[in-house]
């Protein structure tokens, strides 16, 4: 298959994830996952697990501490809870991405918006469903990445999910530094600006390592 623009390796998987849906996929070390924000400002909640030992998984806190910065930008190394590189952000044309905002859940929605939102679909539901096929469960939920989501922290500590800084067609490229399984929730939230109040599809393109 032909290469994706800006990626040197051949495309080995290309799929559109519907709005509100979970998605899981295995990646081998060296492969690159490109996530494309097709319609703009669609939060993509993202967890990953080492393929051969899923108690090793993405750690937002290790990643943030190692780079001394809350935001994920080009060059960010995404670390596991054991301090090992899982993926590297090799390219993105969005200024920065979030890893402190966590995933929406039915339960936290009751706090943030009211108990009338309890029955709405949420990212933790997608994470649980995506992980279920691997026999993972609630104990496997940890702080995640939110690609294309904007969570600034003001000087007084005020923090919140605000209007996005992504746009249609912008993307992030992630090179796997180990064999791993990615679990995604294409965020269904409709109560805050993380999806522009309108969840939309995203595209997942996986390429093999380039020839250099």
């Amino acid at each position: 298959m032909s290469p994706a623009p800006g990626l040197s390796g051949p495309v080995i998987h290309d799929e559109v994830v519907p709005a509100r849906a979970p998605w899981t996929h295995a990646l081998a070390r060296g492969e690159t996952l490109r996530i494309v924000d097709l319609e703009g400002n669609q939060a993509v909640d993202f967890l990953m697990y080492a393929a051969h030992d899923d108690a090793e998984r993405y750690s937002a806190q290790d990643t943030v501490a190692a780079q001394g910065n809350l935001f994920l930008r080009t060059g960010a190394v995404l670390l596991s809870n054991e301090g090992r590189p899982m993926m590297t952000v090799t390219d993105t044309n969005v200024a920065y991405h979030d890893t402190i905002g966590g995933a929406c859940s039915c339960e936290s929605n009751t706090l943030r918006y009211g108990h009338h939102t309890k029955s709405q679909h949420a990212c933790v539901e997608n994470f649980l469903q995506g992980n279920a096929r691997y026999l993972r469960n609630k104990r496997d939920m940890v702080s995640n990445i939110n690609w294309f989501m904007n969570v600034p922290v003001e000087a007084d500590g005020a923090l919140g999910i605000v209007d996005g800084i992504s746009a249609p067609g912008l993307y992030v490229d992630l090179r796997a530094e180990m064999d791993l399984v990615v679990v995604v929730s294409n965020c269904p939230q409709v109560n805050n600006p993380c999806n522009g109040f309108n969840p939309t599809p995203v595209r997942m393109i996986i390429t093999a390592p380039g020839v250099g």
Partner: protein
Amino acid sequence: MSTADPYGAQAHARAMAGTRVQAMPTLPAPEGFVWEETVAAGGYATKRLNRGARLKLTDLEGDACVSLLVFNAEAPTERLNVADTTKVQWNAYLGAGRFLLSDMGRVLFSILEDEAGTHDCFCGASNEASNARKYGDGVNHGAHPNARDRFLIAAGKHGLTRKDVHPCVNLFKGVRVEADGGLAFQGGPFPAGRSLTMRAEMDVLVVLANCPHVLDPRPAYTVTPVRVTAWRGEPAALVDPIRNATPEGLRAFLNVEDYYAR
């Protein structure tokens, strides 16, 4: 004293009774208390506390760094969720009047008093690799124990494993977020004796590790003991000011009250 036979070995062992060191539990805890323990530099402690209990941490010498995990004691798959704790309270920093949230939308602890104001929800626990980079080694049986492995041992004593060790909060050592997302470390020097008092709003398992903060720039492994004190009490009353301070908090307390409505 000969330890060549069981009689001598018994006498030798029993002769240690009454020894006091700085880092040790006091049993029984003083009248009215349920936990009295000084945790060593590099050490850890864990305890089940009932709903309503007060937990006071005192930074005895000014250089403690307490990394904290919290579980629902009766169903430990419910646990501290740091992202929800900051997001739901619309604020990056812990302090008096704020609370620690579980991943089920419930309050695990309310912060009643805070003399420190320097805490951290973002940087998490040191691990063997990060301590090895800074101090030469990071193994728990060496001179530079790391917080993650302390968590693993403490959690293991409740039958919990690696999957149960979740993102933590760090107390007494803090960070502040700069305009570009950068993190400024708040490492002191701080006066001795700063304390933090929290109220358990659920029956909880607490796990504490007292290891240097992962951003601590000092080349030497620097951390000092922390005193842990707990006593019985009542959970938040319906008129409690923390319970009623914000609409998000009120709903989190309503979720706790609903959980215990049986």
